[in-house]
């Protein structure tokens, strides 16, 4: 059974800190890994990763995938209170008709 495990489950940091969120997975015939940010409402798309070692970057957020060790990290530098959210990792595997399997998320709280 495909599985996605995120750690830590929750994290509290101060503004300006750098955080690293982890996502490990077990999936048959891996295709891609996606990161989403969920604040009060619906998840919003952050990154899609398909190849090992290539960093995706958007502002203060960056993510990288290791297909050999089966994990990804999401880094946030110089955190701000607006970064407070649940960060979801999802993995697509198997045939083209199989949708994403989501992890339970990491709840990040950034305090001033």
């Amino acid at each position, binding site marked *: 059974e495909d599985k996605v495990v995120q750690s830590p489950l929750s994290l509290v940091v101060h503004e300006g800190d750098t955080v690293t969120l982890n996502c490990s997975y077990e999936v048959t015939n891996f295709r891609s890994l996606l990161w989403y940010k969920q604040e009060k409402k*619906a998840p919003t798309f952050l990154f899609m990763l398909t190849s090992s070692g290539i960093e995706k970057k958007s502002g203060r957020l960056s993510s990288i995938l290791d297909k050999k060790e089966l994990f990804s990290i999401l880094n946030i530098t110089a955190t701000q209170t607006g970064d407070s959210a649940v960060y979801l990792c999802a993995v697509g595997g198997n045939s083209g008709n199989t949708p994403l399997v989501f992890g339970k*998320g990491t709840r990040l709280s950034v305090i001033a």
Partner: protein
Amino acid sequence: DARVTQTPRHKVTEMGQEVTMRCQPILGHNTVFWYRQTMMQGLELLAYFRNRAPLDDSGMPKDRFSAEMPDATLATLKIQPSEPRDSAVYFCASGQGSGVAQETQYFGPGTRLLVL
């Protein structure tokens, strides 16, 4: 600004009543997903459609849940009869393309359901 829309945004109902949730995917997207999210279980996939055809609904309790796409602009999720344990936020998401490009999903705002 293309987005997925869902109605209603909130629904409070009594146990045993029928609940219908609607979703309008982003125009041109060929895949629609229904998810349920609770504090305990996180995001769970209930069903999904590609080109209006149901591909997988194994995540749904078949005796009470049903999902349909009467046309390309409307997806519905029905619960009949509803039970208190169905209380959750139900998200619809849509995507476009095939293979890897299919997998970026755009979520609607969700329907928050409370069954008393």
